[in-house]
């Protein structure tokens, strides 16, 4: 229960100063806190603000409420009769043995039925397989969570708070690790006579469980047939809220293009010259790079035959326009944009975000190394080579800054040894070390369940990452 604020009511002068934004943040804070608890002062403040009164008056005359509202009673009664029609009581005067025989026959039928024919049974099999499937790398992955009103990104496994946690906890669904078959099974197993439907396609299986009661009334889990990993989940609640959870698409640098090939399908450019896929891909990355997005901003680049599909999230209108203009110059590229608002206040400054940025940067550098091998680059012209080198240097420098930022964050609470020793470094080693650091940071800062990670381990691995990154960055800086 909320209690009235103990602070004295602010003076009219103070309220006016607040209203017209003449107070500093420190001065305004106690008054705002008071206002949130004190209806009287809230009313006083709003009486002083003409816009409230004007809006009130305006809507009264300009947008009147309906004169007559229909009575709800007949519709409520209709809902009741519809419900009764659905629930037909099973009353039978048949001898008990008939029912027993029928039940026995049913058991026999079920036992003889080939596996996979019954949805409930098939769901159990699929969930068991999904539970056993390796979930390597999950700890450092992130999830995109969407509801009707918001969208945010969180670590895949966390005990951290977020806007929908309470709803899932109330529904007894494990929100610490929502995209796991175990969480789904635990919820499903607790339901009383749920309706289960399984739809299987070539690449995925979808389990749709509808509950007859409770707060969470439907859960739809999509499992990838190839590796039985959970791809996404969608939940519907009794109060019409819905929540959709998917693994965050590739971060910058985690492009899921097919393995590099020297001989590639080519397309006809407007000027009549064929532009090979690697060159177009490089230009796509250059265009994205030119937007100067924050590290870790999700953008995926995928190949669809000879076409490149770019999916960008949360670009502002200027970035969107700029990217479209840049991509328009590259043949056979499609841009899709989607909204994805990250909860900046929660995560931007955190060590988790920093380590994610490092990991994203490391992945990107590794991807550049993989995609644009010496052999591939040898086919580039001078301008394309220069673009590639510039992009590589820019991201190496950013990685260096991100590592320094994380060092600064860690050093607030722990002593970090210097990193003078040289190591032999590759982008592969960089990614491997960044993954370990990110897992440890996530585990320690977000309080992952069952974590045994400790600070000494993080400090040690971070020092190693620092050495690798310094060596790697030096090698990039000294390259042509």
């Amino acid at each position, binding site marked *: 229960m909320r209690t009235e604020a103990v602070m004295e009511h602010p003076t009219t002068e103070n309220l006016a100063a607040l209203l017209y934004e003449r107070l500093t943040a420190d001065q305004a804070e106690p008054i705002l806190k008071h206002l949130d608890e004190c209806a009287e002062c809230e009313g006083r403040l709003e009486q002083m603000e003409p816009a*409230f009164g004007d809006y009130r008056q305006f809507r009264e005359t300009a947008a009147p409420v309906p004169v007559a509202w229909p*009575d709800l009673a007949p519709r409520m009664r209709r809902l009741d009769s519809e419900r009764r029609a659905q629930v037909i009581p099973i009353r039978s005067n048949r001898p008990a043995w008939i029912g027993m025989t029928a039940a026995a026959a049913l058991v026999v039928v079920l036992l003889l039925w080939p596996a996979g024919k019954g949805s409930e049974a098939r769901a159990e099999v699929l969930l068991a397989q999904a539970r056993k499937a390796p979930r390597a790398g999950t700890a450092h992955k992130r999830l995109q969570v969407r509801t009707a009103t918001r969208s945010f990104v969180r670590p895949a496994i966390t005990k951290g708070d977020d806007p929908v946690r309470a709803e899932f906890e109330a529904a007894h669904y494990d929100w610490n690790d929502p995209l796991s078959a175990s969480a789904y099974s635990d919820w499903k197993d607790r339901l009383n006579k749920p309706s289960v439907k399984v739809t299987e396609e070539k690449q995925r299986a979808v389990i749709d469980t509808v509950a007859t009661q409770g707060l969470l009334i439907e859960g739809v889990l999509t499992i990838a047939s190839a590796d039985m990993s959970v791809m996404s989940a969608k939940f519907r609640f009794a*109060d019409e809220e819905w929540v959709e959870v998917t693994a965050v698409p590739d971060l910058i640098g985690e492009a899921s293009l097919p393995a590099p090939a020297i001989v590639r399908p080519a397309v006809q450019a407007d000027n009549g010259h064929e532009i090979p896929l690697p060159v177009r891909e490089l230009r796509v990355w250059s265009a994205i790079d030119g937007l100067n997005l924050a590290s870790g901003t999700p953008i995926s680049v995928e190949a669809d035959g000879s076409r490149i599909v770019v999916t960008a999230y949360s670009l502002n209108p200027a970035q969107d326009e700029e990217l479209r203009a840049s991509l328009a110059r590259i043949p056979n590229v499609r841009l899709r944009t989607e909204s994805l608002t990250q909860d900046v206040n929660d995560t931007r400054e955190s060590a988790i975000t920093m380590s994610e940025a490092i990991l994203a940067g490391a992945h990107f550098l590794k991807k550049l190394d993989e995609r644009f091998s010496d052999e591939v680059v040898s086919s580039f012209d001078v301008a394309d080579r220069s673009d590639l080198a510039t992009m590589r240097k820019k991201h190496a420098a950013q990685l260096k800054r991100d590592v320094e930022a994380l060092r600064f964050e860690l050093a607030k609470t722990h002593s970090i040894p210097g990193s003078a020793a040289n190591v032999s470094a590759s982008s592969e080693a960089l990614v491997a070390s960044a993954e370990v650091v990110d897992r440890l940071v996530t585990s320690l800062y977000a309080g992952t369940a069952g974590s045994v990670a400790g600070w000494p381990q993080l400090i040690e691995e971070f020092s190693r990452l620092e050495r690798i990154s310094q060596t790697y960055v030096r090698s990039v800086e000294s390259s042509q």
Partner: protein
Amino acid sequence: MTVIATNVESRDEIQLRVADLYEANRDGVYRALLATGLDSGKAQEMTQEAFLRFYVVLRDGGVVEHARAWVYRVAHNLAVDSMARHARETGISDAIADTLPSKGEGAEKDVIEKERRERFQAALARLSTQQRICLELRVQGLRYHEIADVLQIRSSTVGEFLRRAIRQLRKSYPCERKP
């Protein structure tokens, strides 16, 4: 947690309770739905739908601790879903525009008042949907935390939306009314 399982009221009692809540809050819910951008017909339809859903939850054994906030939230969710399904429909500003007095209504005072209303309307149209909803709900008397509950956002965000909305509306005032 908003809903917990229990079963203490008869169906008639529940219907009366819902009818009372409906009578007291339907205009407010309707206006909040207008603020989301629904047209008046759709807003009226969804207002009733939200109360009917409230009835179904109670009838099936649920208890809603904050009934008014629950209905507002469900109505808001229905509106958001509807908006996602269909193209944006007539917003409150358009609804308001429909009711503005027609041109050529004589007296100079009317002209000045009309201009003022038009400026205010234009400023209102520039508000984001969230800002408009916050303003509408606040004018209806919902506290910051109640608005936050309806929109599933933080109280501080509600405050920010309101501040921005007010700043925008102030711009519509002639110089002498500005602080």
